[in-house]
């Protein structure tokens, strides 16, 4: 059977798009989202003070993203508009993380099928409930798939390695400082150096706060939560002696200096 010149099967096109998006996402640094006793913690190594990877969407809903800044910024702004318009139309309690995750999923999915280039982003929508049972962490990938994560999620950069380290250390109902310690340990390669406080973007959704649960942790408030440098926990025994997994992502390392 003769094929027209330049023909590519739909399967091939989808595969190429997915590969392209995956490469773009792996180029950046990882972001970690996990549950702690009073809510949900977001941690992102991010040297830029201006370009946030973590943001407030609504009273109980937070947002974290990796990948292309301009692309996830559009998603963030759209999410805020969605949440505010629904909270204003109905009631503030009628805005849910699930609704927002569905909106993102349908948009990501449509862009993945319709456009030549899919979005090179991965997004977490997290919602804090009245108790730990009410917490929800949704992870969305570039093709619009939604993953309902339990307890923690890692994305971007060497997401699998980070996720493995996170899984080993994660416990239920950790204190905030313990959860931060776990997040930083997961974000640091074995034997690697931790990012300095000034290059960390940290925020929480704290269920005990009034009105708006989202709070950025910066400056001295963050330093107090961090363990002192010499007291940092040794790597778990399982990893000792093993050759560390390959860590250098393909392409340029995202140092946050470029908006792209």
């Amino acid at each position: 059977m003769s094929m027209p010149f330049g023909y590519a099967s739909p399967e091939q096109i989808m595969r190429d798009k997915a590969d392209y998006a995956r490469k773009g996402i792996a180029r950046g640094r990882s972001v970690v989202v996990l549950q702690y006793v009073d809510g949900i913690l977001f941690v992102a190594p991010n040297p830029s003070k201006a370009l946030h990877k973590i943001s407030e969407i609504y009273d109980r809903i937070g947002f974290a993203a990796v990948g292309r800044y301009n692309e996830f910024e559009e998603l963030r702004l759209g999410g805020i508009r969605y949440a505010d318009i629904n909270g204003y139309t109905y009631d503030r309690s009628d805005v849910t993380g699930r609704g927002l995750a569905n909106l993102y999923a349908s948009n990501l999915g449509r862009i993945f099928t319709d456009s030549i280039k899919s979005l090179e982003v991965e997004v977490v929508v997290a919602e804090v409930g009245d108790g730990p049972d009410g917490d929800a962490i949704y992870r969305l990938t570039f093709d619009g798939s939604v993953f309902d994560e339990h307890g923690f999620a890692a994305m971007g950069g060497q997401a699998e390695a980070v996720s493995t380290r996170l899984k080993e250390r994660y416990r239920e109902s950790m204190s905030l400082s313990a959860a931060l310690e776990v997040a930083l340990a997961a974000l640091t390669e074995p034997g690697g150096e931790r990012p300095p406080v000034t290059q960390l973007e940290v925020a929480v959704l704290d269920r005990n706060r009034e009105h708006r649960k989202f709070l950025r942790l910066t400056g001295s408030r963050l330093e107090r939560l961090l363990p002192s440098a010499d007291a940092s926990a040794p790597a778990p025994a399982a990893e000792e002696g093993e050759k560390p997994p390959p860590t250098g992502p393909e392409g340029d390392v995202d140092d946050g200096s470029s908006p792209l």
Partner: protein
Amino acid sequence: MASHRDLPAGLRDQLFHNTGSSSFTDFVGSYAPELLPLRNEVLATPIGDQVPHATTIIAATFAGGVVMAGDRRATSGNIISQRDVEKVFRTDDYSCMGIAGTASTGIEMARLYRVELEHYEKLEGRTMSVAGKANRLATMIRGNLAMAMQGLVVVPLFAAYDPAADAGRIFSYDVAGGPYERERFDAIGSGSIFARGSLKKLYRDGASADDMAMTLIQALYDAADDDSATGGPDVTRKIWPIVSVVDADGFRRLSEEQVTGYVERMLEARLISPDGPIAPLR
């Protein structure tokens, strides 16, 4: 931009369309204009007297902040339509507003204004300046001018903590907008004349938040004393004014017990001298 009603179900592209404006009101106006409290409708007859009216709101600055208080009465003509209405609203962490005039439009406006401030803060990643907040509210009031001419008047009083000056600031408005920044104190609503007269004599520069809250309770009592539309403390039902403080620690509404304390102290003193504290002559 068309209303969302014109789009096929499930298509919500306008949410992701960047208009270049961080204003929630502008966004609602293009996305779902029927949701805005600011409408240009022509009523067959003015309905001013038939809908509940919110009455007196007062605010005064103290050292490092501002206190706002409102009585609890809503009236329609000569009828008391509600005894425990709430007319002082938190608008963001460092500001609050009180409304006088048509209660329903005012409450809707306060709700919209809160989202407006928060929307800007989330989109821009910074808090709006106090002057910016005051100006946004002015635009909103001006948008209601057509309805105000038909009897649905809403006039707010806006108070905010300004971190740049480490002080409270008060802004008042008229039916066509504003803002007019007020030094020290201001009052709006039917009882405002009497409250302002009382505040003029009782206000002390550099007072504490505690003293200023007491001053406002006194002024509200004086307003209720002379204005039939302003509700005094309802002793039998235990309904007291709403008192809110905004300072460097943010907005907080005083608890029921705290306000009860102020009101009981005031009532006790008024049993002896019904006209309240006497300002020194010289």
